[in-house]
């Protein structure tokens, strides 16, 4: 996960735009949440083992749920700063999936980079939409922020009834 002393993970699940809301309905589970802080002691890998338990009902395929992730890192003073944005779609086939969600963070101007290196903090997106939409995202100067590994077990039900082969 990079040389963070500690890493937090905020997860934000799909259903952000209206299309999602129209087709997908959250039956149970928490739509967004936050993991604990992990301090990687061996290697660079931070382990969260944070369970995500969601139950959706859908009336259409549009707006397939996706996971929005924000990785935050905590420094030795207990201050938090953004370490990366990322999102990935929930797979569409049942079973256990290993997902790798690459993350990135905006780099900002050299001044900001310098400030980030010394006093912490860092540029953050004002509008979160750019994370997952935004054809103009290439304009941003970004830096890679590590990869979040997700292990999702998926159960689908009645999709075949509507002619969807998963």
């Amino acid at each position, binding site marked *: 996960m990079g040389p963070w002393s500690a890493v937090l993970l905020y997860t934000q699940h799909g259903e952000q735009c209206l299309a999602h809301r129209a*087709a997908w309905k959250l039956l149970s589970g928490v739509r967004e949440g936050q993991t604990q802080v992990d301090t990687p002691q061996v290697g660079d890998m931070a382990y969260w083992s944070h369970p995500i338990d969601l139950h959706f009902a859908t009336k259409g395929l549009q707006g397939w749920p996706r996971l929005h992730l924000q990785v935050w890192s905590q420094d030795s003073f207990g201050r938090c*700063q953004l370490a990366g944005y990322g999102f990935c779609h929930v797979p569409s086939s049942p079973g256990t999936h290993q997902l790798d969600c690459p993350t990135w963070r905006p780099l900002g*101007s050299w001044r900001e980079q310098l400030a980030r290196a010394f006093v*912490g*903090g860092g*540029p953050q997106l004002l509008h979160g939409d750019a994370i997952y939409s*935004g054809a103009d995202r290439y304009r*941003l100067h970004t830096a890679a922020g590590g990869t979040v590994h997700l292990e999702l077990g998926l159960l689908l039900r009645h999709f075949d009834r509507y002619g969807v082969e998963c």
Partner: protein
Amino acid sequence: MVSEKSHLGDQQEPGHEDPNADARPLSMPTRRGPRSLPPIPSASRTGFAEFSMRERMREKLQAARSKAESALLQEIPTPRPRRLRSPSEKELETEFGTEPGGKIQTTQQEDDSQSYSRVKFRDSVRKIKSKTPDEEELLDDKDAVDFLLGLDRGAEDIVAVRPADYESVHIRLQKEKELLFIPSRRTVPTYKKLPENVQPRFLEDEGLYIGARLEVPRTNQNIMENRLLMQEPGRRWFGDDGRILALPNPIKPFPSRPLVLSQEQDIKAELETLYKKAVKYVHRSQHMIGSGDPPGNFQLDIDISGLIFTHHPCFSREHVLAAKLAQLYDQYLARRQRNKAKFLTDKLQALRNAVQMSLNPAKTPKSLDTTRRAINEYKSEIRQTRKLRDIEQEKDRTLLKTIIKVWKEMKSLREFQRFTNTPLKLVLRKEKVDQKADEEAYEAEVQAEISELLEEHREEYEQRMDEYRSAHQQWKAWKKAQRTKKKKKKQGVEEHPDDEMEEPYPGEDPVKPVPPEPTNQAVIEQEVRERAAQSRRRPGEPMLVPELSLAGSVTPNDQCPRVEVLRREDVKRRSVYLKVLFNDKEVSRTNSRPLGADFRVHFGQIFNLQIVNWPESLTLQVYETVGHSGTTLLAEVFLPIPETTVVTGRAPLEEVEFSSNQHVTLDHEGVGSGVPFSFEADGSNQLTLMTSGKVSNSVSWAIGENGIPLIPPLSQQNIGFRSALKRADAISSIGTSGLTDMKKLAKWAAESKLDPNDPNNAPLMQLILVATSGESYVPDFFRLEQLQQEFNFVSDEELNRSKRFRLLRLRSQEVPEFRNYKQIPVYDREIMEKVFQDYEKRLRDRNVIETKDHIDTHRAIVAKYLQQVRESVINRFLIAKHHFLLADLIVEEEVPNISSEGSGILGLRLFKLAEQKRPLRPRRKGRKKVTAQNLSDGDIKLLVNIIRAYDIPVRKPITSKFQQPPRSSRTFSEKQAASPTTHSPTHSADYPLSQVLVRPFVEVSFQRTICHTTTADGPNPSWNEELELPFRAPNGNYSTTSLQSVKDDVFINIFDEVLYDVLEDDRERASGIHTRIERHWLGCVKIPFSTIYFQAKIDGTFKIDTPPVLLGYSKEQSVVAERGFDPVRSLSEGSYITLFITMEPQLVPGESVREKTSDMLKKFDSQEDEKLLQATEKFQAECALKFPNRQCLTTVIDISGKTVFITRYLKPLNPPQELLNAYPNNPQATAELVARYVSLIPFLPDTVSFAGICDLWSTSDQFLDLLAGDEEEHAVLLCNYFLSLGKKAWLMMGNAIPEGPTAYVLTREQSHYLIWNPCSGHFYGQFDTFCPLKSVGCLIGPDNIWFNIQRHDSPLRINFDITKPKLWKSFFSRSLPYPGLSSVQPEELIYQRTDKAAAAELQDRIEKILKEKIMDWRPRHLTRWNRYCTSTLRHFLPLLERSQGEDVEDDHRAELLKQLGDYRFSGFPLHMPYSELKPLIEAVYSTGVHNIDVPNVEFALAVYIHPYPKNVLSVWIYVASLIRNR
């Protein structure tokens, strides 16, 4: 090869004639280079010259050599070819090759081997060539000599020293030229590129599209073309136009990915980044409790543009008139704009036309009836319209007249005072009218009116005429009858004198009707004309249009009289400013501006108020300063809080009027204010004007940077999470938000003149269109993808219909009904419809007050309210509940430690092994606590250990003769002394010796499971038995919160087992025993489960709640008293039982949740002073340090979740007057009555109502309204009552059994202290051993808190003198004086009298329900009711209430005996506060009266409800069973 050879041969031939065949292969490679390429002329010439010369030399040599060779070859013919053929001997071969050059050639020739590599061949050739002829000659000779002589050639034979090979540049170039082809750079003529005789064809000229070719330099093209022509003669590379075929230029004219711009240049909004500092990690839940939106970014813009005085003390008379004139003119303008008269005239005209139309029968196809009706309607409408029009016209006219009159007055005033103060000037403009047309119109109008009136009158006349006629007829008939009667009378005066008397005509004689007068046309016309003249403009008279202007000139000061100059100077000295008050707090003020001569003040200031909450009030205060003398508040102007649609830039300026009631008298021309003055010289016609004016202002909501109006959410409570999407909806995008009413929106859109064609407004316009077109369907969404529906599997309805999904969702939402569902069926069909029934019913009934469950409406309302409070509180804490602590998630067993005591395995345990076993000295083992998560039904058991009981009532013999004991109405002091002699021993003589006194056993019932002990003997039995009862949590949910909310009680009932001999026949007595066991209820102890849960164990002696009257039983006090050995016990009356109750396994009470949430609660805003809160924390910390186990309470949480200092709850409050009047001279009795009243308010623990969340304290009025509360509320109320009765009373926080931490009330009597249990109404002396209060933590008075810092905390052993600082640590002391905190309690409690009729009704209903229940509980037996007994009991109950259940037993028994002498009677009254029906039923059930199954048993049940004020009801239930004695 072959072809080459021939080819070469052909070419060679012209140059040389070489007969020698040997020479040919030598020359062959030199010729091969050019091959088919055309020889370059210049190069080839030199080559030839050289070539030919060498050739000749070689030929000579060859000739000589060949002779010698031929001889040699014949000698050794065999090895040669073999050597040549082997590739491994190439080196040798070359060496040999040099030596006899020709020899090799020949052999090669002979073999015709083609396997030789050409390179080698050439190499050898080159070597040969490079050697000068002399050398060759020489070598050859030497070799030949050597060879011939047979000399040893040795090294020379293997190694040859050679000079470095060198090929001159020229030669190399020459050879390269031969080998390589360099295409020319010249342009290829077109004909070469095209097939023969084909003209080049240019597609472009023919109009076909050819893309732009890639730019290639001309030379490159030429080279390519030349090369292609040479290499591929097929010309397929060339197009029709003779150029190389080429694709259009693939390069886009612009880069498809624009350059990455530097940061400074504009970046799209969504890509903006913001540098955020690294933030300290704040816990999320703190955010959640606060509002979702960051506070403080709401803004209210108040634009104060100016102020106009409509009256001011400094007004001169002229000003007064001018103000009046201006006002009238405004009115006139307004009227003219509306022009109602014109509108009404038009309407009238239209109506008349309509009547004309309908009168014409040809045009109306409708039936005659309908037309007539229509005409009638029209006519009545015409009448009304005319009336209205006349009024309007008259008003217009009078207004105009008044304006003119005021203007004239003003003019005359100006003339009179000879100066002008105001620039007002009225000009009357005349508008010419066409006299003739006007007259005609006037006349026509008058005529029309006359005709209509005439018609009306005629109709009226007809009607009256009809009336007259009928009346006349009647009158005539009456007259006739009268006459005949008179005749009759005369005839029979003598016979029927009575008749006449009886027959006076009822009422007076009918008056002879007068025929109505016919209408007089002339009169009507006269009337109409008069009216017209009055209200209407005369024909031909010009229309007058007044115009008010400020064109006049004001007389300068030097021409005015002194008084006026003084006035003007006074005005100049005055200045005005405004204060802006937001929520009654001054937030800013305008500049002070001088008052102008025209009494207008211009401010033009805009105040931006940054606010956090929704504004409550907005006020402007108008202040006036006179000179330097100071300011006076003129008036307050209340501004309306703008609607959410009003945003800055769109708000119109509004004028808000104000007026002041100040009285000002001035010594100059100014008329003053509130002072009568007059325009007339003689002082008549006085006027009094008050200072008044108008503030023109506008209040609006500011718009934020991104166009969102900065409006705080309407209700601060339900600030939900407003997502960014919600902000961006159609309505808020145009600058409003929070609009829900479509009608209002439409109205607003119409008012704000929204451009419907503006594409920005399109969604809004559509919304309005849909909303206002009457269709009820308003989509509450904006569809992004309209085709979405095509892709949907199912419709929304279908999705919503799915029961499974619904169940899942409800479960995850933790809706109470579904909270504890474990597994949800997989298929919809497996889910019963009835699962939702309760939930739906609850939703439906949310606002409907259900009276079925709660018989009495007030309770129903309260229950609903309580439910709502509970829901809101629970919702508030839902987040807190999901916030886990480390301990909640991680179970970490303590690491065994050598040094640690008890838990150390290695340490003490090791020694324990060696210890002696002492089975007779058992040691207590600590039980392991179990967290309540992984439990299921049957895991938890309730263990009830019943040890012994004291003073159980004993049976009384049934005596036929009854002696009335002397009844003494005991006073309090006697009771205090508790003389045991009051009950005289009346029975001991009558006891049959065989009969035991009593055979009690204990039955414990919990959750309808019943266990009982064996039967013991005597009034002081000892059972020492352990009963085990299973515990089931509601819905199988064993979570902490669920367990905390278990409302069940443990009933411990004590019964007497009575054996009856039922042998019918005495003869059988010898052979058999036939007895029936009956059990008689003696009393019960009720312990709520929640207490057991929180206390973990309950151990102690409890007072048995015995009924005040227990028929057939009495206390066995005589024996005790006579012995006199147990004074302590005899002090208190009643029976006691020693119990030990616990749970197995021990559950961890949800203490952590409570603490956690109470911590959260502390963060709720408090209105207390910050310093005070700090002090409380400090105090509590200090107390906890010294005595961690003692309860110390300083702040509590009120019902709205705010932290309140505890003493604010204590304040003298009046008890109901009714109670005070009961014993006017006996304060102690009054106190008892009051305590009883408080105890009658039902008890409902907070832990139950607010499942495991926290203790909420409600104020006394809330408590009385809710009619439910726990110990604190009871105690607070009781304490407040005592304070108002003039007692010294404190709230005492401590521990009691069985309640646990609780609140009692301590009062100080003259010489001693009394401890009151507020929930039962009982009181105990300080030294009463049976006082349930076991420890005292702190005392709370109305103005201080005292913490117990004595060594002991048992009330028996402590000193209650709070003045001693060594014993009691007080909160407010000299260092922190009492700041005089105001109370949260109301000023006074208001008690409504409870409706007696309602109580009586409730009483009947309860009785009926209970009777039904008893019958239900006895399904196999017939239940007979003894009506006679019931009525007796019913009479008896009010008596019990009056005496509070004391000392009436004997009377009662006597009476019963008298009436029901031949019945064996057992029964008792139960007394309870009334809250719900269920506890009553539960109590009756627990007595087990219904369990009697003697065949001829009869029952009696009576209910009595005594209403106390404020709906506090005391319920008495008398249940009895009767068995007829044989």
